[in-house]
């Protein structure tokens, strides 16, 4: 066990950590936006939009992430980092859309009808009444989805983005100390996951007292 390898490669691991955090943050922002839009469409009334949302969700959920990353990198021809971000965004947006749609289903329809009677437009109702309640309801499954984004960011190493998992491979190929590198990188991933989970539970506790239940 030569743990000094980790100290030796600390700058490489730090760069990898920065890239992983960048990938995850951008993908979380993108997939939350797209997922909320698709989820709101999927929960609405009407004929085409809910079915289109359902088709989007089912199509993108059943294809592995690597396929999407390779598609955006080799077939569409984007650079490595943008193709990773877009693939992660589209992948997780399908899951988040499903979670958001199920959150909408849990809210009583009277909320929407009462606000309609009071004269609010659809967008006002969505923005000020429905979405705040939905996000308070779906906080636990949404935390799982955000952690999934962090975990799926590791597959972007396959197209050459030098994030944490790539650095593990790099340290193994240069020093054959793969076990120490893999353990250290696993700890780093656990730290990132812990940060995300703590942030979401902090939000959950802060929103608990606003009387939305």
């Amino acid at each position: 066990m030569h743990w000094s390898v980790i100290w030796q490669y600390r700058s490489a691991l730090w760069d990898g950590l920065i890239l992983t955090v960048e990938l995850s943050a951008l993908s979380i922002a993108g997939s939350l936006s797209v997922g909320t839009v698709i989820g709101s469409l999927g929960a609405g009334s009407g004929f085409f939009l809910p079915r289109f949302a359902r088709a989007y969700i089912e199509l993108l959920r059943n294809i592995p992430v690597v396929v999407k990353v390779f598609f955006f990198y080799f077939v569409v021809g984007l650079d490595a980092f943008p193709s990773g971000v877009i693939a992660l965004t589209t992948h997780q947006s399908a899951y988040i859309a499903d979670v958001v749609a199920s959150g909408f289903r849990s809210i009583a329809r009277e909320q929407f009808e009462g606000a309609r009677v009071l004269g609010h437009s659809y967008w006002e109702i969505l923005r000020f009444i429905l979405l705040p309640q939905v996000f308070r309801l779906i906080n636990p499954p949404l935390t799982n989805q955000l952690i999934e984004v962090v975990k799926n960011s590791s597959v972007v190493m396959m197209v050459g983005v030098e994030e944490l998992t790539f650095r593990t491979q790099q340290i193994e190929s240069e020093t054959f100390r793969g076990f120490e590198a893999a353990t250290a990188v696993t700890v780093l991933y656990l730290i990132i996951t812990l940060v995300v989970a703590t942030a979401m539970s902090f939000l959950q506790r802060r929103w608990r007292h606003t009387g939305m239940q």
Partner: protein
Amino acid sequence: MVWRVGLAACWFAFFWIVRDFQWSVVWRTAPFLLKGLGVSCLLTIVSVTLGMLGGIVLAAARLGGAWGVRHIAVAYIEIIRATPQLMVIFWVFFTYPALTGQTMSAWEAAIISLSMIAAAYLAEVIRAGLLSLPRVQAESAKVTGLSPVQTFIHVLLPQAVRNMLPALIAHFVMIFKITSLVYMIGLTDFFRATIIINNRDIAPYALYTTMAVVYFSCSYGLSFIVRRLDPKYTLVS
């Protein structure tokens, strides 16, 4: 009426576009791709089977184990569930040589790491299934004189399996999608087979469309079967 015409128009547009793809490459290399698909399916089945056994052990440890055993089981489950799957594969691939000094073949690394991942996820599913049973089952089994192991195998597990069937299938599909990650350790599953063919005969549109269609039909088909078995079983992740 109008929407049926629109739907038919969409199908016609789709087939018009894919007409120009190089499908001959797909037909020519179909045996190789099917072999890769067989590797993926075999990996999934073996990993889920071993993962079920490991998951039962972990769930039992978590629900009824001694003080230290319970904590070890929880630590294992939480760490594996919070780590990227590719990282788990790498960790297994690198740990065995560090401990024993011998290299590990790609097959062994894939099966062991996928089984570890499956065990961690399935342990949670099994625990939820066991907790969903009313306590009266375990208590009446104990009263009639069955030992704890007999209760577990003959009374609790069959009922719990019926309750957790949708989640089991969902995790089976998840493991099937994760097998695409063994590309990194050199195992030729369906994904790697398609990439190899694409590197040799450049036909990305046809090959990627085939890959998407095959993955989608396998995954969606499995979950669709469960939904048809019983309308009560709708899969929500």
